[in-house]
């Protein structure tokens, strides 16, 4: 076998192995998207009921609560960024990071100091590489987040927002995550969790213009609100985590699909080249034999004379 042909054969073999791997990853991601989507759906009833309750209390209770009123001049904001632990998901992480960077720049432009909280190894690595200070980070569960994870993330954030700004607390809480629109579309979005803007919450609950019942609060409106808002934040974070994980799997599936397709194309063109190399080799061998015979014939003819 000629050297050229051997090189092609070896490359075809390695690309075929790669293709098998990417194909497997595509299948795994596809099954995980479905699972993640199911989890998003399973968490929806809780989120809707909670949103409805929050709207009811916040509009029913006339008193001002730290988590629903905007500070007169906010000076500090917290940004929670959700990324994934692993890459191989196309532009998934870089889109989320880019959206967060834009938000941070915007907030800083408004004269607010920004505390950055990051979920997922990719995001952490991004900020560590640039030697930016992170307020807190969480890693290791982005593929399959649980409610306990959301609770763990929510805890320091709620603590920060309840503290006075002078003591290192924050006035606003923003979240940046990747929304799962469909299998093909996932967009990085940013939202302000706190202070709560009631119009938006009401819109989410889909009942902005219906008349709300006059609730009796047990034990009291403030206590209910105090207990309700942290749960609301946690549930929003949980929902964002789930959407982000569904989006990550969808992005991985797409990236791996195109990798598999590319590998297939590469194999086709390499096979063509290998075939051509083999043909060239055979042609050369034939012409060598023919040439050899002719030379031999000439030599014998010469010796006859």
């Amino acid at each position: 076998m000629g050297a050229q042909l051997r090189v092609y054969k070896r490359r075809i073999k390695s690309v075929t192995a790669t293709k098998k791997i990417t194909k497997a990853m595509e299948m795994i991601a596809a099954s995980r998207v479905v699972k993640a989507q199911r989890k998003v759906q399973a968490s929806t009833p809780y989120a809707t009921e909670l949103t409805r309750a929050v709207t009811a209390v916040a509009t029913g209770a006339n008193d001002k609560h730290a988590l629903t009123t905007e500070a007169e001049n906010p000076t500090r904001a917290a940004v929670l960024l959700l990324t994934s632990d692993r890459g191989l998901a196309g532009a998934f992480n870089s889109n989320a990071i880019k959206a967060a960077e834009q938000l941070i720049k915007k907030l800083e432009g408004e004269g607010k100091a920004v505390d950055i909280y990051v979920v997922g190894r990719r995001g952490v690595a991004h900020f560590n590489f640039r030697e930016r200070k992170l307020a807190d980070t969480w890693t290791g569960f982005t593929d399959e987040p649980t409610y306990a994870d959301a609770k763990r993330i929510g805890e320091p954030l709620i603590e920060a927002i309840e503290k006075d700004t002078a003591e290192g607390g924050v006035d606003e809480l923003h979240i940046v995550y990747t929304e799962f629109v469909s299998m093909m579309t996932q967009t990085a979005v940013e939202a302000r969790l706190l202070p709560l803007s009631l119009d938006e919450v009401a819109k989410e609950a889909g009942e902005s213009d219906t008349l709300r019942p006059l609730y009796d609060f047990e034990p009291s409106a403030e206590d209910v609100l105090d207990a309700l808002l942290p749960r609301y934040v946690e549930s929003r974070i949980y929902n964002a985590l789930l959407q982000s994980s569904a989006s990550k799997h969808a992005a991985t599936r797409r990236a791996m699909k195109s990798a598999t397709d590319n590998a297939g194309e590469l194999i086709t063109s390499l096979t063509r080249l290998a075939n051509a190399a083999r043909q060239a080799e055979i042609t050369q061998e034939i012409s060598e034999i023919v040439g050899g015979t002719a030379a031999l014939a000439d030599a014998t003819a010469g010796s006859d004379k």
Partner: protein
Amino acid sequence: MAAELHVELVAADRSVWSGEATLVIARTTSGDIGVMPGHQPLLGVLESGPVTIRTSEGGTVVAAVHGGFLSFADDKLSLLAEIAELSDEIDTQRAERALERAKAGDDAAAERRAEVRLRAVAVR
């Protein structure tokens, strides 16, 4: 007025139970409260404790609920809990083990959770 109310018991990650009921007893931070059809709109903070639902078919559903809310309006009752388990989903032995572990480890919250689970099973 309709003599039954619609109950939705939802945990953070799933819907646990939903159906029609005639009476729901839950524990709020200021004490046990019973909700019957026609109750005035109510929003309350739940304690860790068993929730008892008398269904309109005459059966009883008991669930262990840990932290959450109850909201009632228009004969619709929503019980939101971070964790909620129906009594027949609870593994008694596991709960007992968890209780022992919590007692040994001085984890008051875990101890309470395990106790509530066991109580929910006992009521069944």
